[in-house]
């Protein structure tokens, strides 16, 4: 099994030779669906080169790099991190809609920013260090 870390998730996937995997697994990890036009999410499709496709398989590393996202592997290539593309982050922030997130409180209860719609929110970070 190959471990893939995304900005909000952690997935165990049967991948080989890097990040070659089934389109089903690729969708589970990224939310993008393989269609004849390429990898698609909502009404956006990103065409893939023939070199990133095989019968019932897709090279997720090639796709993610085409999107402009960083792909980092551990030395043993058993753990990978797919980062959010810079342009995706910039576009989301420049739209000024506060990116939603879900994080646990001290008791492990998940809380989402979107639950606070209708109130002014002062969102502040801190740390012990």
């Amino acid at each position, binding site marked *: 099994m190959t471990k893939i870390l995304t900005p909000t998730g952690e997935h165990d996937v049967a991948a080989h030779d890097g990040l070659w995997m089934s389109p089903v697994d690729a969708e589970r990890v990224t939310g993008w669906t393989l269609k004849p036009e390429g990898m698609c999410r909502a009404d956006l499709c990103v065409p893939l080169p023939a070199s990133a496709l095989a019968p019932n398989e897709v090279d997720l590393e090639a796709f993610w790099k085409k999107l402009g996202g960083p792909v980092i592997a551990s030395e043993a290539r058993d753990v990978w991190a797919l980062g959010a593309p810079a342009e995706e982050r910039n576009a*989301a922030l420049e739209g000024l809609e506060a990116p939603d997130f879900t994080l646990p409180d001290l008791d492990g209860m998940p*809380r989402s*920013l979107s639950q606070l*719609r209708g*109130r002014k929110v002062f969102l502040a970070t801190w740390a012990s260090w």
Partner: protein
Amino acid sequence: MWQALYEELKDKGFMVVAVAEESRGAEHARPWIDQAASSYWQLIDADHRLEDLYNLVNVPQAIWIDEQGRIVRPPETAGSTDHFRRMDLATRTMTPEDQADRLAARQAYLDAVRAWVATGAHALPADQARAGLPKVTPEIAEARARFRLGLWLRANGRVAEGDLQMAEASRLHPDSWSLWRQAADLDEVGKASGPEFWKRVQALGDRPYYPPPKL
């Protein structure tokens, strides 16, 4: 830290969400949260996801979000100042003048939050809010991915390899104090504010550690 402000404003449609950027996890943050005796949300962000989403570089930083879920002030220093840089390191004290200035700056920031809640003051028009957003570069995006991988490797017994990824993350995103200080803290509690930290602060020269909010 924000409890008095929250108590004062909570009935006026106001909420505080405090997020601990704390890769050692909830139990490490618990003593501070217990001491704060807060009734607003105190959330734990072990993976620094919020810093990734909002392109943050230090703590404390705050984002102001209106009733429609829109960012009305981009990430800014939340009430802290650079006076600590002039502190006497032997006695860990500031001059009375610096202490007074520091408190006044913090008070001015809290007053700005109060005015925002009362009248909408200090909420920026869209173009100004947008102009205040720092850009995510490909280097920053790569730094985030390396930091995430580094945290996972560290948490799974591959400490040396994790440290290498985190060091590379700091090299790619040198403006992030959080990436460097969190990695230092994971190496050893206290290291994030030790001699190496002060050397980095001195290397800033005329540049701010806590850029003042543009209120």
